[in-house]
């Protein structure tokens, strides 16, 4: 009889490990996670692309309908997250502090998180040039 009670107890017991997708992993606010350029500040100087140790940043032309006064060359950095090593050299070297940093570390799950172009272009809509 005790065997059955033990089996039933174990069937309905929660596992001792952290149930990851339901329970979030505790992470620091300033953990080095996802980062992208704020196009309201970025002036397209390309310093982050030159200084990147893993060559993960590519300077691309802005879409043709977007003209920014502070960005005469019309370039903006696009980070390739699979090759980024998250050293934050681009964040610290930026002369206008244009980078937005987040503690997001789950980058393998969604395909739109492969490149930073959508995130960067969204900053223009929200902030206004």
């Amino acid at each position, binding site marked *: 009889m005790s065997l059955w009670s033990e089996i039933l107890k174990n069937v309905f017991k929660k596992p001792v490990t952290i149930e990851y997708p339901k329970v979030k992993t505790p*992470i*620091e606010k*300033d*953990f*080095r996670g996802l980062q992208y350029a704020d196009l309201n500040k970025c002036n397209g100087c390309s310093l982050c692309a030159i*200084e990147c*140790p*893993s060559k993960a940043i590519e300077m691309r032309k802005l879409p043709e309908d977007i003209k920014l006064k502070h960005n005469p060359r019309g370039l903006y950095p696009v980070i390739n997250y699979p090759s980024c*090593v*998250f*050293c*934050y*050299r681009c964040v*610290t*070297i930026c*002369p206008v502090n244009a980078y937005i940093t987040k503690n997001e570390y789950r980058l393998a799950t969604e395909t739109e998180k492969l490149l930073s172009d959508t995130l960067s272009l969204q900053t223009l809509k929200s902030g206004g040039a």
Partner: protein
Amino acid sequence: MTETVLQIPISLEIPIGPQHPALHEPVMLKVYADGEEVVKVEINTGYNHRGVEKLFEMNSFYKGVFISARICGICNTVHANVYVRGIEQLLGLEPSPRAKYLRVLAMELERIHSHMIINAIMAEILGFDTLFMLIMRDRELVMKAKEILTGGRVLADYYMPGGVRRDIDDVKKDRILDILKKIRPRLEYYKKLFEVDPTITNRLVDVGVLKPRDITLHGLVGPIARGSGVKTDVRAEDKYEVYGEIPWNVITRSEGDSLARMLVRWDEAIESLNMCEYILTHLPGGQAVVDERKLPRVLPLGEAFTRVEAPRGELTYYIIGSGRDRPYRVKVRTPSFHNIINSGFSYLGYSIADVPVILVSYDPCISCMERAILIKDGEKKYVSLRDIVNMKRVR
């Protein structure tokens, strides 16, 4: 090699590795056994060569700070520290006292978790998997402390010539102190367990005994030397950063067997914990973070030689400045290079089952030590890419 083996009447050649359940690193031990007794060990490396020294020469010296941290995952802060100190020697920069304290804090936190992981792996090799899980669980606390300090759980990327890359405030300081308080009883418990538990002591006592003469003859460094009673520690000899100001002791043991080496690591972890607590309570004020935009862009002509006590032993960097933005040459000499390649003699006379135990007690770090240098009959030979291609063709 083959001729000498043929002289032994009955010997069996057993390859252990490079992928083997009893090894956690890609190294190949070719063990020749007479019955159960090991009569000869050949150590073959080259499975993890990545050409890091060439990468240093091809990239600017600021990129080198991050490349050096990626040589080894577990001891990344010591690699970055010793590289950055070499660059500082060339540039003539001097970090502030607060930056020096924070640098030592990051390195000592890393020493704690490095010593914990090798003891956990030793428990796993012995078949004591529960202890492996327990030590790895408590190691997460140290990783959390490192995350609070540097912003990365494993790769710190904390160093920059002239200082550190982020500072801590009082809230973070208290949180790290709380974590250290939780770790202390666990470290003391594990140390006692390694001393008294028969599962561990039966496998480790009198296995892989190294006399002090062997240590000096074969140039072994780090906890291996200290486990055999050789009092050598770069932190005490060079007193780099602020090791001269922090009270601490060099741990030595006289037994020289595998257990002594593991116990030296537990004692050092407790000693590092004391140092971390001292640093956090005596942290000087001032500016620690360096503005990376105002640093010089050219590495002047000259050479720098720096060394550091990594968790595995003495680690040295030799940097030649070229007068351009990239170094002319960076030579990395890691502790595992000595401890693994030179230690083939120490397996002789023990049984085959002892080979993984002895190897793990040396704390191998193969990704650190892979260099394209052949040392044969005492003379040194550098191998170029063309030579490697030709070798492949011949075989």
